[in-house]
C-alpha cells in the first residue's frame, strides 16, 4: 500500500504536533511528541499496552480534558489550525474529528436517530427537511455498507444490531457531520474475524475521503490496513515511517523487536 507514499508535502498533513507533553496528575504519559499525520491515509498507532497510543489519540479532539487533572503542553495543529488557540470551539473541533471506540457504543435510540444524532446537536430544529434527513441517513449507511442490512428497520433500536453492524453504525453516525479526520481506538477488538475483515475493507474505502488514525494492538491489522505506522513506547514516539518500512526494515532496534513479537 505504498502507492500513496510519495513525496511529503506539508500541506498534505492533517495533524501536526510539536513538543507535545501530557500529564495525568503527576504522571507524564506523553513525552515530546513530534508527528505529522498525512491526509487521506490510514495511519496506525502501534505499541505495547500503556505506551500512550490512546492518550495521544484523545489529544487530537481534546476529549482528554473531560477527564480532569490532565495537563497538556506543546501544540497540536489540525488542518493547520492550532487546536489550543483561544478561538477554537471544542464543539466544532469534535464535529470535524470523529471518534470510534473499542466497544461499539451506539446510542440507545433508533438506527435512524443514531445517524442523525450529530446533525441534531449541531443544527436547529427545522434546518433539514425530512427528505434531506432521509437522504443523509441512506448515504451514510451506504458508505459503511450497512444500508442493505438495515434499510427496513431504521426505526428499530440500534442496540439490537450485531456488534459488527453496531460498529459500522458508529462510523456512519460521524459521516453526516462531514468530518476531516476519523480517530479509531481499536475498532475491531470486540469483533470476530469476519467482522474485523468487514471493518478493515471499509477503512480502506473511507481513506479515500477521510484521514484515518487507528490505534491497534493487532500487528496483522496495522500491516494490512495502514499506509503509515507510528511506533510508540513509554509515552515516546520511537519511529514513524511507511508501514512497509516499519515491518520490514525498521531503523530502531526496539521497533524491530516489537514488530517481530519479542515483547508487547
Amino acid at each position: 500500500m505504498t502507492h500513496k507514499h510519495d513525496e511529503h508535502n506539508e500541506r498534505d498533513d492533517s495533524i501536526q504536533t510539536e513538543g507535545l507533553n501530557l500529564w495525568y496528575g503527576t504522571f507524564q504519559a506523553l513525552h515530546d511528541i513530534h508527528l505529522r499525520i498525512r491526509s487521506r491515509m490510514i495511519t496506525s498507532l502501534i505499541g505495547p499496552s500503556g505506551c500512550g497510543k490512546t492518550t495521544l489519540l484523545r489529544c487530537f479532539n481534546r476529549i482528554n480534558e473531560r477527564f480532569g487533572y490532565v495537563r497538556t503542553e506543546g501544540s497540536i495543529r489540525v488542518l493547520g489550525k492550532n487546536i489550543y488557540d483561544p478561538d477554537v470551539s471544542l464543539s466544532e473541533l469534535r464535529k470535524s474529528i470523529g471518534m470510534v471506540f473499542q466497544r461499539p457504543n451506539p446510542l440507545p435510540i433508533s438506527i435512524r436517530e443514531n445517524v442523525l444524532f450529530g446533525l441534531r446537536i449541531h443544527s436547529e430544529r427545522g434546518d433539514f427537511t425530512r427528505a434531506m434527513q432521509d437522504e443523509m441517513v441512506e448515504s451514510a449507511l451506504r458508505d459503511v455498507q450497512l444500508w442493505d442490512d438495515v434499510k427496513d428497520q431504521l426505526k428499530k433500536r440500534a442496540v439490537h444490531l450485531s456488534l459488527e453492524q453496531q460498529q459500522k453504525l458508529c462510523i456512519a453516525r460521524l459521516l453526516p457531520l462531514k468530518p476531516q479526520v476519523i480517530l479509531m481506538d481499536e475498532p475491531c477488538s470486540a469483533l470476530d474475524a469476519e467482522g474485523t475483515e468487514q471493518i478493515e475493507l471499509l477503512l480502506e474505502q473511507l481513506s479515500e475521503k477521510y484521514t484515518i488514525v487507528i490505534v491497534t494492538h493487532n500487528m496483522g491489522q496495522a500491516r494490512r490496513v495502514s499506509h503509515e505506522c507510528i511506533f510508540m513506547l513509554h509515552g515516546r514516539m520511537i519511529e514513524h515511517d511507511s508501514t512497509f518500512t516499519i515491518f520490514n526494515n525498521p531503523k530502531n532496534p526496539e521497533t524491530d523487536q516489537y514488530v517481530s513479537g519479542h515483547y508487547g
Partner: protein
Amino acid sequence: MFSSTPREKRRRKIERIAAVTCFLFTMLLVVPVLAILTYLVVRAWPALSLDFILENPQNLMQSGGIWAPLVGTFCLVWLTLAISAPIGILAGIYLNEYARDNWFTRVVSLAVVNLAGVPSIVHALFGFGAFVLTLGMGKSLLAASCTMSVMTLPVIITSTREALAAVPISFRMACWNMGATRWQTIRTIVLPNSMSGILTGVILQISRTAGETAPILFTGVVFYAPVAESGFASILPYSVDQPFMAMSMHLFTLMTQVRGVSEEMQYATAVALVGLILLISGGAIGLRTWLRNHRRW
C-alpha cells in the same frame, strides 16, 4: 467415580437449609403485609361506603365521612412533589453530571446524607420556624408542603444520582466526541434512559408524604376544616394559604382525640389512606411505564 463424598453430602444439606431459610424469611415479610391489609379491610367493612368517602366529617367526627382530609392529603402530596421533584432532580443532575470531585461537592453530598437522617419532628420545628414564621406563610398548605419537600429532597436527590450513574459512560463518550454539550447529552440521552429510576425515587416519596404526621402538625394541618362536598370547589377546595385537613392527622384525631368514634370508622379511615397512597403511586407507576415505552423526547 463421580459418587458423592461425605463432605459433598454435607454441603448439599447446608445448601438446602440456606435456600429454605431464605424462603421462610421472604414469607415472613409477605405475610404481615397481607395480614395488615386483610385485617384493615375486614374491620373497616361495615363503615366503608361511597358516602363515607364523599362526605365531610360531621357531628364532632362521630359520623359523616373523610372527604375533607382525603382531598387535603391529595393536595399536600402533589404540592410537595411539585416543589421537591424539580429541585431534587436538578440538584441530582448537577451533582452527578456537572460537579467535579472537590471539597465543595463532598460537603454538599454530606449535607444531603445528613438531611436524610434528620427526624421528622425536627423537620416540623424547622418548617414552623422557617416557613410559617420567618417567611410569613402562616399555618397553611404551602408551609406544610415546603416542610415536607425539605424532608423528601434527600431521597429524591440520592435516587436521581443513582439513576443517572447507572447510564453507561460510553453513551456520554459517544455524545461528547460528536461535540455535544453536557446539557445536550443529558437531555437527549442520559435523562430519557434514567427517567424510570428517577421516578421510582419520587414515587417512594408519595407514600411518605401521605403518611407523615409530624412535619405538618405545626405547619398547616388542622383538626377540622370542612370543604365543599359537590361542585368544582370539592375537587380543589383548599387554597395554598389556608390550613387544611389531612388523613394521617385525621386518623390520629379519630383514635385519640375525640370520644365515641366507632372502630369501624377508624379502620375505614386507615383503609382510605392506604387506598389513596396506592392510587397515587399506581398513577405514577403508570406514568413511568408509559415514559419507558415512549422514550422519544
